[in-house]
């Protein structure tokens, strides 16, 4: 790597091994809506290393719930909701999963518990218990406004 590059990295104080901030909120069952009010949204989920299968199983049901929903806005939400996993560890050895919603459906409720309960009312409690117990600490939920699309 050129010396210049290394210098740039250091000057903005980036770390290689601990690049993820600690969660700001705890994932707990809640009836409070999680609204995205601008162009996009980002959620950092901090998941216990031994519970990633549980988390991913519920994520698969979440996808199903959105796609099977009779509400058009739910299918709209599905269209731009992606789930990623990061190899960088989160706080306390957690695994970081990132939800990107871009574009967001403005004003739509992205609360996982609500979405599951709408489509799978009989299973919602069990599914959300499995989901919330997979969290190591919590999540960061961020509303985003587009500043620049570098392709346009």
């Amino acid at each position: 790597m050129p010396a210049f590059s290394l210098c740039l990295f250091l000057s903005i104080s980036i770390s290689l091994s601990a690049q993820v901030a600690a969660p700001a909120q705890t994932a707990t069952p809640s009836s409070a809506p999680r609204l995205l009010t601008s162009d996009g949204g980002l959620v950092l989920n901090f998941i216990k290393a031994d519970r990633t299968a549980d988390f991913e199983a519920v994520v698969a049901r979440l996808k199903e719930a959105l796609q099977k929903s009779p509400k058009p806005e739910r299918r709209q939400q599905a269209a731009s909701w992606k789930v990623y996993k990061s190899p960088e560890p989160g706080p306390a050895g957690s695994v970081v999963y990132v939800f990107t919603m871009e574009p967001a459906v403005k004003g739509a409720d992205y609360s996982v518990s609500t979405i599951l309960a709408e489509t799978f009312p009989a299973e919602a409690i069990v599914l959300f218990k499995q989901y919330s117990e997979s969290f190591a600490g919590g999540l960061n939920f961020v509303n985003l406004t587009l500043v620049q699309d570098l392709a346009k």
Partner: protein
Amino acid sequence: MLRIAVGLVVGMLVASTAQAQQAAAPAAPNPFVFPGDGGVILNFVKADKTADFEMVMGKVKEALMKSTKPERKAQATGWKIFKATEAGANGSVIYAFVFDPAQKGGDYSVGNILVQELGPEGQTLYKTYSDSFGTPAIGALLHLTKVADFGQ
């Protein structure tokens, strides 16, 4: 907002320790190369330097689009910049870089892009860019592998 800020401050403390360790390492991999499907960087910018940050990112866009290298143009295609509603650590403004898709193996280091594509002007711009960052500079740098696309 406060909850987000507190969470990110904790991340900063961890990151600072790791940075000190990194300084002693002989050759580190370039963290701005994304080998997987996507990437996210949360940049913490000083509240009074957002105009500088956005100006430089405008130049980065211009540099990518005018580049003679096809891989630079490809990087522009999936790169979007968002501003978060939520505040970052120490009152900073969070700018999220979202690379979706990432150009696999592409170097997304802003410093390298500016200097390689714009020469001496790029060095001046990079100083403006790096001076715009708060402390910590980066809240998260995540190399992402897609787990689910709810729209497919």
